[in-house]
């Protein structure tokens, strides 16, 4: 009994220490958002000398031409449609692969998986040239259209695996009651697919939100910059960087992600494990 308590205590101690170690960078970021450059580089104290929102106000004002209102509005204009389109298109494509038999299905599925292995860096130049020919540079279309056309094999694969775990009997029962294939997807499968759809949506949200390179390549005008580009705008080797300002904006920028994760945590964990274990 005693030994059990000790081992439990040790486990908790370990978890608490690990938690502190993992949270430290975030704590550092929050604290640094109140510090001057001299404090950040010159002292090892974690607590700032004073708590002031000066850097938040200054940082939010942006560079004089655009404020973070614009950058956040741009981010959501970019991210939300991409997430919705990804979830819808990937569900439909996965439905096809999981539930229907058609000619060369296996070949197509292999090709789909093969594109999953293709690193993004390899396709960036042909993609850029293609989108350039379509006249989509400096618009959000290079993000919307691939999402609409199910160009995210990772999510399709995850959805297919999840759908395979849902018994066919449900579909068949619906058919007997006179349901068409599309209606079966909407009314029978979708409610069951919710965890998988949520996890795909959440992952896509984070990835698109954090995406630096693609936004850098496709977006030219500062008026269309999302926060990922806006954050980098103040950092330059040839200029004096006010780190407090950068840290303050970093705190603000991670907020939507933190809120989203906490509020959708239940679905997210369920979706990942369900897609991964059953198959």
């Amino acid at each position: 009994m005693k030994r059990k308590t000790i081992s439990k205590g040790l486990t908790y101690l370990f978890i608490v220490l690990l938690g502190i170690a993992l949270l430290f960078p975030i704590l550092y970021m929050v604290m640094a958002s109140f510090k001057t450059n001299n404090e950040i580089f010159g002292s090892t104290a974690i607590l700032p000398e004073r708590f002031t929102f000066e850097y938040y106000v200054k940082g939010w004002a942006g560079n004089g031409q655009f404020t973070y209102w614009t950058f956040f509005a741009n981010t959501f204009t970019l991210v939300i449609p991409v997430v919705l389109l990804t979830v819808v298109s990937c569900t439909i494509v996965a439905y096809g692969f999981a539930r229907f038999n058609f000619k060369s299905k296996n070949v197509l599925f292999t090709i789909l998986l093969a594109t999953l292995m293709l690193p993004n860096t390899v396709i960036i130049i042909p993609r850029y040239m293609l989108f350039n020919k379509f006249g989509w540079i400096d618009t959000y279309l290079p993000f919307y259209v691939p999402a609409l056309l199910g160009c995210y094999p990772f999510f399709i694969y995850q959805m297919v695996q999840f759908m395979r775990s849902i018994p066919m009997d449900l579909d068949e029962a619906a058919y007997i009651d006179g349901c068409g294939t599309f209606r079966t997807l909407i009314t029978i499968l979708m409610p069951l697919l919710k965890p998988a759809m949520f996890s795909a949506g959440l992952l896509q949200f984070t990835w698109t939100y954090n995406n630096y390179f693609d936004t850098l390549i496709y977006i030219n005008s500062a008026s269309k910059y999302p926060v990922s580009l806006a954050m980098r705008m103040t950092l330059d080797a040839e200029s004096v960087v006010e780190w407090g300002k950068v840290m303050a904006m970093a705190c603000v920028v991670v907020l939507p992600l933190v809120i989203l994760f906490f509020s959708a945590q239940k679905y997210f964990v369920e979706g990942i494990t369900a897609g991964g274990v059953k198959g």
Partner: protein
Amino acid sequence: MTKTRIIALLLAAIMCIAMMPVSMAEEHEPVTIRFSWWGGDGRHAATLEVIEQFQELYPWITVQGEYGSSDGYHDKLATQLTSKTEPDIMQVDPETMPQFVKSGDSFVDLAAAGFDFSNFDMAAISASTITGCYDGVQLGVPTGIAGACMLVNADLAAEIGADFTKPYTWEDMITWGKAAREKGYYLLHANVSYLDNMLVNNYTKQISGTTLFDPATGELLATEENLTKTYSLIKDFFDNETIAPIATMVQYAGDSIQSDPDWIAGKYVCTLTYISTASVMIAANPDANYIVGELPVAEGALNNGWIVGCPQILAVSKNSKNVDAAIMFLNYFYNNEKAVSTLNTQRSVPPTAFAREIVSADGKMDPILAAAVDILNPYNGLANDPIGSTPRAKTIIENEIEELAYGLVSPADAAAIVIAEYQEMAQ
């Protein structure tokens, strides 16, 4: 009669006024030009203000700013140049520009296009590709004066009895370094890439009188004997603790050199930095009392090594549909008093005497920067050759500096390895 005349006059006047904007609009179709640059907050704000001033003056031209940080800037520019979607005006790094010029006919001949070079010292800027001149054609305009700057913490220098204001040699630095160690300081703040760019690059030019490769033919000019001398000097710097140990240096590699806590705490006597970075170094430890020193030259040097360069170049795209508007903007940017005064030293010390006078009169010229330019100007070293400035050539040198510092190779071994690899690179 008079009444009719007055009415007629009034009507005519109204017609004239009403037609004025119409006729102006007819003369000038609205034009939009794109201008891309990298920088920090200060540079963005100043450049955007100049754009606004220009647009007020020429209301039919809209200048769209495409700006961000230097991170990824040239990757993006390379992609844009390949697919011909580059901005009309672009800020380019002078060390990267030769690759763009080589891979395609991308930039406009600015003199032919009508850019007003009258404020520039043409002999100086047409001397090398670093200031935008390629085969006698000016493809870019330098935005400022750049080059090395010996930034000295004057109080510490006085404490150890080092005089940086008179000419001195690299060996003098070792002697001063010993005095600095006795007081608990290091003499020179540097990291591996700064040792390469400042010490190897210039010391080799000084003792050999040539660049590493022949700039015209690409033939290897560096000799094993000279490189052994260079690496011996670096070894002496490490052994006598003129510079911090390699284990400290690697933590503040590349551009993060200003975050070294010992620099912030004022434990280095001096640093060999760039004019454009000097203010960043000062901001990291603002309370110290700084002066700009002379630059070290080897005894019996065949060439003094140090060169006057520029930090960025502005170039105009050959694919631009509005070259005229772009040139008008550049003329405003470089030659208008108000613009020059707004830009002040955001892109280093201005490239023209005209602009330097205005900025000094405004009191916006940082005395340290002005001193650095004055000290650098008389140096007339050889311009770096294109092969020796490639990232690959630099990595080879830097790898051997690290191996030498860790005691894995002797100076002779390091020189032999570099020569062997350079022979492969030579054309």
